[in-house]
């Protein structure tokens, strides 16, 4: 049994958050809602996404796992108007039937039996900050013109994003209480990340969203945010670059 009604915007958010990480996913549909955990092939970035059943107008599900192609789903959803409601169910041939207003799609499922279930590592990170995604995006965008990686250096009063190569460099200062709000601070933290990966993840976060980032010392970064009117929650993990010096 799999039959749901959900806003097209909510579905688009779900797949947009997943697409920077993987092409195909295993979606676990449970009694309380959906969950997807996925890691990219190089095990550098990971996503853990959940969407509560409150996000759905109709939610009739017996727990099951569905294999879906993320990019194709996003393509399919382009056929809908922004305020459309999407109706999804499985037909007798085990195809996903997606209908939105006068449009109906029948999509075969991807075989997800071989997909691994990544374990989300439990990270203890000394710094946690809350800020608007736009602040990070600004730093990432500019640093891409300088180098292929970016360093986050967080002290008690500020977070400094730097990027340098040869003689060029960029520095962006974000201040506590102004551009960001401190959630916890145990000690100073510094890590570098691949811009390639980070920029992709930010596409998944989207513009102008409140996010919480956690930073450690040469340690993975954790980035969390809510979506779909707080019925959805996503968590990204990104492994750091190795410091060359």
């Amino acid at each position, binding site marked *: 049994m799999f039959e749901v009604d959900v806003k097209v915007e909510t579905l688009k958010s779900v797949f947009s958050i997943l697409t920077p990480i993987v*092409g195909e996913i295993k979606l676990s549909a449970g009694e309380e809602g959906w969950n997807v955990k996925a*890691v990219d*092939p*190089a*095990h*550098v*970035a*990971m996503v853990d996404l959940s969407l509560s059943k409150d996000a759905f107008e109709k939610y009739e599900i017996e727990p099951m796992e569905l294999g879906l192609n993320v990019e194709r789903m996003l393509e399919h959803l382009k056929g809908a108007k922004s305020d459309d409601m999407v109706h999804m169910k499985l037909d007798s041939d085990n195809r996903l039937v997606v209908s939105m207003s006068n449009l109906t799609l029948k999509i075969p499922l991807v075989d997800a039996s071989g997909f691994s279930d990544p*374990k989300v*590592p439990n990270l203890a990170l000394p710094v946690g900050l809350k800020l608007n995604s736009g602040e990070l995006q600004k730093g990432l965008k500019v640093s891409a013109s300088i180098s*292929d*990686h970016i360093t986050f250096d967080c002290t008690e009063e500020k977070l400094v994003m730097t990027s340098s190569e040869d003689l060029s460099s960029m520095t962006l200062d974000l201040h506590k209480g102004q551009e960001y709000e401190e959630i916890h601070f145990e000690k100073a933290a510094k890590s570098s990340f*691949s811009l*390639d990966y980070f920029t992709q993840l930010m596409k998944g976060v989207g513009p102008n969203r409140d996010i919480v980032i956690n930073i450690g010392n*040469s340690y*993975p970064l954790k980035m969390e945010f809510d979506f779909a009117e707080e019925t959805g929650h996503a968590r990204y*993990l990104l*492994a*750091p*670059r*190795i410091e*060359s010096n």
Partner: protein
Amino acid sequence: MVLSFEEIAKSYKRIEDLSKRLEMTDELIDLFTGRSPAELEYIVRLTKGEVRPAFEGIELGVAEKLAVKALYQVTLISPDEIEEKRKTLGDIGSLAEEIMRRKMQMSLFSEELTVDRVFKSLEKISLVEGKASQDHKLKLIAELLHDATPLEARYITRIVCGKMRLGIADMTIVDALSYVMTPEFSDIIEKILSLRPGEPIEASVKAISTHKTAALNSLIDLISHPKKNGLDPDIIQKVHPLVDDLRSRIKNNRKIMVKAYNTHPDLGSIANKLMEFGIEGLKTIHVQPGVPLRAMLGERSSSIGSILERMGGETALEYKYDGLRVQAHIWNEEENRSIVLFSRQLEDLTDQFPDVVDYINDRFQGEDGIVEGECVPVEPNTGRLLPFQLISQRRGRKHSLQEKVKEIPVSLIVFDCLYSNGNDMTNEPYLVRREALKGLFKDLGENIEPEKGVSLSKMKIVKDPVIGETFFNMSLEDGCEGIMAKSISGSSVYQAGSRGWHWIKYKKDYRSELSDTLDLVVIGAFHGSGRRKGRYGALLMASYDPKEGIYRSVCKLGSGFNDQHLFEMVSIIDELSGPIEHVWKNVDSKMIPDICTTPDLVLEVLGAEITFSPNHTCSFGKIKDDAGLALRFPRFTGRYRSDKGPTDATTEEEIIGIFGSQNKIISDRSS
């Protein structure tokens, strides 16, 4: 205990630094010892750089570009930087190792690679098909590299790209397995030591635990000369039988393995069976349609008289057709008839000869069978034989095959039967096999009739050398390269994979002074100048020494190439070239060409004579101090021996033989 891939990667690294066959065997013995059946199978396959035996037609051979892309994904070192490194390093394995060492990106988690996982992932990569196959392969490679150490990455990328090239011959693997599979080994060693045989023997015996083959040889050497080595004769009398026993056990096991390998050339499954059931397990390996046998080969002789002498006064003579040797397998699977054609190199040729498949399907009247024949180009109206070179245009072709089938019609001339109606025929004598062969096809005659497509090789039983000579001349007139004498004695069985005196070839090339062409391996190339600027001026050619597994130079080949050859040669050499320490692992040459290549490509070469040369290493110092043997005035016949692998090339022993007989002719003439 789970076997880590790192452990075998380390072993491969040590093997790379070795050049002597015995040392490699010793390393392999360590690598093979104490494995489970599946592990040993995987290790043997990986060592050969494949996941399935070649005859199944499933190959890895992923483009290096894809491996480079995976390296980028895993390390985030820019593609430009990787490309730059590739130019200086050449070999994909060294590149991967270096790039992985400079990895900039950490990962969220990683797991140690096991042999099991590496093998299964590679197997998946080899089987991926379809539209998104490149992306899928990339993902699988990246997943492996992600968990790989730099050293592991070196071998993963090489295997994935089909370029393992450890320089280990199949027979070296067999040698190592025959040691591993002689469980009495340690008992006998213990027994010898318990005799307290004294210092030199004890030291030699103890060395066997680390230097297996080499130490056993030196032990044998030691006790064979007791006086010279000052050994106690009483002790020797006790030690000798034990050592002999050990040696004969190993030898015997090796013989059983070689026989299994010749009838079922898949070392991976042989290794698996060995571990599971012991040597006895190999006895269940039988000739089986669908699995190619290694071809039986003939010795050569320079006169009908000497052939008759060897054959006991009477012999069968068969035309030796100049074509492509083909082993056709016909069997039924769920009511459907399967027909598969294999080359001498055991490659699947079926898709390249749909016409031959049709002919067989039409004419075959048995239940099932394995027959051997020569696929020859024929003139469609008369059935006259056409030059062999035409058939090479049919090979390796994927496009416009249908046109070529019409343009270059071929016929299959069958000459042997290895399996017939459920029965293994290889242990039957020649004449019985030939009768069985006749029974397998409708209306099989010795005249080539192009529309029928299958005929029988021309054969005559002779006692008189004059009649034999006439038959030989007739074969040349009919467009053959000579004749093959086949023993009609009761012991004349089909010896798969070996060269023996049951078959003796007699060929003559009247244009050359040497009575036969040589098949030599390209080991390098020299840049051309003048008209050949930008191409290659000459190739460095080698013969093969199967005892040591080494290729030694025998001539610089510069003539006989037309423009087409010169053009083709550039990309062929490019594909085979690499850093000297990698591609020349099994090469022994004093001459260093501009470009060194992996010994792989075999060319047919004519020459005037074999002479001494201080520059070439073929049989260096064996006949004359400080000189090797070289081919004078070598000339390429235009024939790529793509049907032969490098280990099938003319051997050093054959060249020594030709040198000897050539001098005999000279001394006969002068006397």
